[in-house]
């Protein structure tokens, strides 16, 4: 049974229209913008590669990259360890598994705005719940959001709390695909828990680990609402994230050309970091 020739094109035409308007045009226009100076109101002004030159002398740009690295270095391992640990336990014969799963997952579905406003209070210096707990344990206060060396790690901890539920589920799915017979064979050879974990579980869930690393990396470069609400990028720019910096250049100063240059550069950075991670993890296999 043949359908009329034009019908498939009619059906995909909304996508083509969308692609031209919201993907192709913006990508091309963003490259053009990087060679121009523009505040939207006055006419665009061609300035050659000045935006690119500025990029490599911009201390805030470098700061936003180091901040992202700090975030990722804490967030990724923490997330993998916590998620794998809880998933391993949930994978045992456990009652109320559904309840625990649902509880761990709750922060995932709640808006980042809610989580950030809530944690801003938990991290409060004088009366925040976390410092009150530390004091009652006889320890000193931590300047979670006021100490420049603590602020980004604090955001990384919060982000882990928010996202880890999703990764618990993904690891759980991954663990359940490992054939039981592998473990039985290892038991026969007298392997201990650690050996079984290292030689059977880890290689089998490698694809899941890769996914967690990639999704967390993209998340780190997309960090925005957390520093925007909690710290405004401070103290001393210690939480200035990539997207927050794009936002500030674009919508505080109306430097559209430079802001687009930042966006283009961060996008290329994300793609190359993910490509490197892919190479690295595939080699590990």
């Amino acid at each position, binding site marked *: 049974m043949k359908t009329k020739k034009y019908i498939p094109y009619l059906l*995909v035409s909304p996508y083509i229209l969308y692609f031209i308007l919201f993907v192709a045009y913006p990508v091309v226009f*963003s490259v053009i913008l990087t060679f121009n100076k523009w505040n939207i109101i006055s006419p665009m002004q061609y300035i050659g590669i000045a935006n690119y030159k500025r990029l490599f002398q911009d201390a805030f740009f470098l700061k936003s990259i180091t901040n992202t690295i700090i975030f990722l270095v804490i967030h990724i391992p923490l997330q993998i360890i916590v998620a794998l640990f809880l998933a391993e336990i949930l994978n045992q014969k456990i009652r109320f598994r559904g309840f625990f799963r649902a509880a761990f997952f709750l922060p995932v579905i709640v808006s980042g705005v809610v989580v950030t406003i809530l944690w801003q209070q938990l991290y409060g210096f004088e009366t925040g719940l976390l410092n009150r707990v530390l004091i009652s344990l006889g320890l000193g206060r931590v300047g979670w959001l006021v100490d420049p060396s603590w602020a980004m790690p604090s955001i990384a901890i919060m982000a882990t709390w928010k996202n880890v539920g999703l990764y618990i589920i993904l690891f759980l799915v991954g663990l359940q695909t490992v054939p039981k017979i592998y473990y039985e064979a290892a038991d026969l050879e007298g392997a201990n828990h650690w050996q079984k974990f290292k030689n059977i579980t880890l290689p089998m869930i490698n694809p899941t680990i890769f996914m967690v690393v990639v999704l967390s990396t993209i998340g780190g470069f997309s960090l925005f609402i957390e520093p925007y609400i909690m710290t405004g990028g401070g103290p001393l720019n210690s939480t200035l994230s990539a997207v927050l910096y794009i936002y500030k250049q674009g919508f505080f100063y109306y430097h559209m050309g430079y802001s687009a240059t930042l966006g283009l550069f961060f996008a290329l950075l994300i793609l190359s970091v993910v490509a490197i991670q892919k190479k690295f993890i595939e080699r590990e296999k």
Partner: protein
Amino acid sequence: MRRTIFYILLTLGALIFLYPFFWMVIASLSPENQIGNLTFLPSMLTLSSYKQMLSKIPIGRSFFNSLFVSSIITFGVLVLGSMVGYALSRLEFRGRNLIFYVIIFTMTLPFQITLIPQYILMVKLGWVDTYWALIVPYLMNALGIIMFRQYFKSIPQDLLDAARLDGCGELKIIFKILWPNSVPALVTIGIITFMASWNEVLWPLIVIRNDHLMTMPQLITLFSVGGAAESQLGVKLAAATMLALPIVLAYLFFQKYFIESMASTGIKE
């Protein structure tokens, strides 16, 4: 013995994930001066934080805006996504693979690159401070198309052939034949899309400045960051609680679907 340790660890974990939310709700119902040392229950519960919040921001209106925008986006993604997904999975035409690869490519494209030019596009179209800016750029979703395409592939050809013999057109096939047989895909894509647009905040912050068009997360963000909350914790937490409430309520009833939907997007990527 080992079992007991597992249960203790899991319970501790559950407390770490649940207690902060409990604290947030309790704090929003406490007198302002008790929040600083609140751990379990205040001496009295009061709605004063909620009353203050209601008098300061148009939260009802923002709830309507969020609901309106998210519903239309979800409906659009389901209708348009299934049209494209159907063409890509069940019809033969030149350029089909090209379009498929283009869609895959757009999925890997970081949004950082399109953020500024998309805003400029909104300015040029005159869409700043309109619902159009909130809705139109989200009506298509690459992940949705890919998931529909995948799901439609699994539906038996006989079903489609029978419908064609009965004289069904393509749209009728999609919405009368495929949809009733694709409920899991519709639920999954519907939930992910609705949640993503309900929780979106960066884009509204960029394209909406008028209080009365703001979405709920945007309004509450600006309320919390700006001076309007007058650094009263209770009022901020009341606003955050209101924002969490609709999604948490939905989650309580459809928890299984939420978890499965979100997990399936992770697996697809």
